[in-house]
């Protein structure tokens, strides 16, 4: 057989989510056509009706697991994927919809739906890694375009992508943004939040709201002390930790401790 170059097959899957992270791929306006030349976009229903059968070399998975059907589906996807990369806060921690994990979802259904018996949902929203092995995760609500492009390029080149594990503080320093927590007195989650956004919120004059989830070794107690000095109550800190990564272990435990 003659040498035919076979492009790696990329699939994009959706679970419970807002579609913003997979949209980030379509938002790579300068890179999209080049990416499409480098990989075979084999399954991406948000962008194309075309479907190429698996197995897939890389699966990007957006969204969290919230239905019994989701549980079956993620196992099937894992079996058909050589590499499985979770993209965004929903897939990596359960997303904003994981706030149900701190409440009784049965009490929530009638608040939204007139006929609760028509609604089928699990009592929790959980990250993909709670169900199957995940090879790589991209944090963020939404993910960073630069990290997505770096990840796809690295995987195509057969190397590990360069992704930070430090805190947002390092990015603020690199950017030259004066500290909004120390100097500005803003309630900022930057010291306990994983870098990746480019320290966006402080650059816009507000405290980080933790949308990339907890960094590797967050010092929650030190953060709480500073917040208290700035007049924040435990309830304020709990509320700040309970947003898009509420179910990420370090944020969840810190919020339960202070409830």
């Amino acid at each position: 057989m003659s040498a035919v170059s076979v492009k790696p097959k990329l699939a994009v899957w959706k679970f419970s989510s807002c579609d913003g992270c997979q949209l980030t791929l379509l938002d790579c306006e300068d890179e999209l056509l080049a990416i499409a030349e480098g990989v075979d976009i084999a399954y991406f229903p948000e962008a194309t009706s075309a479907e190429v059968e698996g197995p897939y070399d890389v699966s990007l998975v957006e969204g969290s697991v919230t239905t019994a059907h989701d549980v079956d589906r993620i196992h099937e996807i894992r079996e058909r994927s050589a590499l499985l990369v979770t993209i965004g806060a929903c897939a990596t921690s359960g997303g904003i919809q994981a706030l149900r994990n701190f409440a009784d979802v049965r009490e929530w259904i009638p608040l939204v739906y007139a006929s609760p018996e028509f609604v089928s949902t699990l009592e929790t929203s959980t990250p993909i890694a709670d169900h199957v092995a995940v090879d790589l995760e991209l944090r963020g609500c939404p993910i960073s375009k630069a990290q997505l492009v770096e990840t796809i390029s690295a995987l195509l080149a057969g190397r590990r992508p360069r992704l930070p594990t430090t805190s947002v503080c390092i990015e603020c320093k690199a950017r030259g943004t004066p500290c909004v927590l120390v100097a500005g007195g803003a309630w900022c989650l930057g010291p306990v939040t994983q870098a990746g956004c480019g320290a966006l919120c402080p650059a816009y004059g507000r405290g980080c709201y933790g949308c990339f989830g907890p960094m590797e070794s967050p010092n929650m107690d030190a953060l709480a002390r500073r917040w208290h000095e700035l007049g924040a109550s435990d309830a304020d800190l709990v509320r700040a930790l309970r947003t898009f990564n509420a179910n990420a272990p370090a944020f969840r435990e810190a919020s339960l401790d202070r409830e």
Partner: protein
Amino acid sequence: MSEATREIRTDYLARVEGEGAMLVRIRDGALEEVQFRIFEPPRFFEALLRGRRFSEAPDITARICGICPIAYMASSAQAMERACGVELPEQLRLLRRLVYCGEWIESHVLHVAMLHAPDFLGYDGAIELARDRRDLVELALRLKKLGNELMRVIGGREVHPVNFRVGGFYRVPAEAELRALVPELEWAREAARELVRWTAGFEFPDYEREYAFVALSQPGEYAIERGRIVSSTGLDIDVAEYEQHFAETHLERSNALHSTLAGVGAYLVGPLARYALSHDRLSDVAQEAAEEAGLGPVCRNPFKSIVVRAVETLYAVDEALRIIAAYERPATPAVPCLPRAASGHGCTEAPRGICWHRYELDAEGTILDAKIVPPTSQNQKTIEEDLVGVVRASLDLPDERLAHVCEQTIRNYDPCISCATHFLRLEVERS
């Protein structure tokens, strides 16, 4: 299934935002049933907002939709500002309108060129289209990038911008930051005209219906971020009166709620509605382009919504240029909003149609109750009625072709299923 049975299914509709399906059942050559189902799992935003601070609503509700976060941020912020009895100063309101123009451009171009145009030209998607018409796809990507650039400069990032708050913004851009966008916007004005000409040249199914159009209306401007709710059936109400005239019903087959207008039934929101009710308030350039495209004062062919979206893209570019030319950096990025025990209502024109919010607050600003009505759930009943009409007119088509026409009918609405879940698979059953 007997020989006379036809069952056409699409289990997972492509090129829409979110998860939905469709079923068409045909018995003995007559259409029996059409269902348009949303199976995107519910995320319970209205419930999880209870107990949150009023100031948190824009960042939280943005997460309902990654394609139109500004719509949710703008409607929720407006509702909270109304609850606090605050009106935004003119420059801050215009800055909101400007970032909203960015979202219209980004969302409309994504749908027009990348999701919907492939239907008219026989491609699976924009990447396949790019193999033959790379020039057009590159033009669309550059336009879309400009919409995103407006969102990035003002909002901090394209998806879930960080610079939006009740009362205004965290940081207002310097004049020079916005003026730097002018050369690209001037290019975009020509590019958007090209988009209008390109889409106007498509072949459209000969299908029209008398719709009840519902949109925001504001004297002197094409309503985006403010206005009264008006309809082609004579409705003219403040956004606070919405619930007295509109009802939502929960159907078993769908995680989205069906909306109806009292005394009318199904209604249509989005580009066709806005155009029918406010086309005379489009800018001269946009009106000229619409006329050149043969649109007339009202467009009742849902397949031509793609042309109206292109016209609105041109308008959004033109309006962005107008706002930037007059922009003076506001002295403060936000006005103070002190909460009080009150209800607040907000309604703005998301790219897909009106996005309505209501919140009840206590004296401390805690959210006691929230209600959010996204555009796609308002259009769901109209989409089903369109499907009935289109299928009846196309019964002779082979299943595969019929399925395609049905999918195209649904995509006319740029349905955002993530939003409506509280949407879609295609099944056609013939028996």
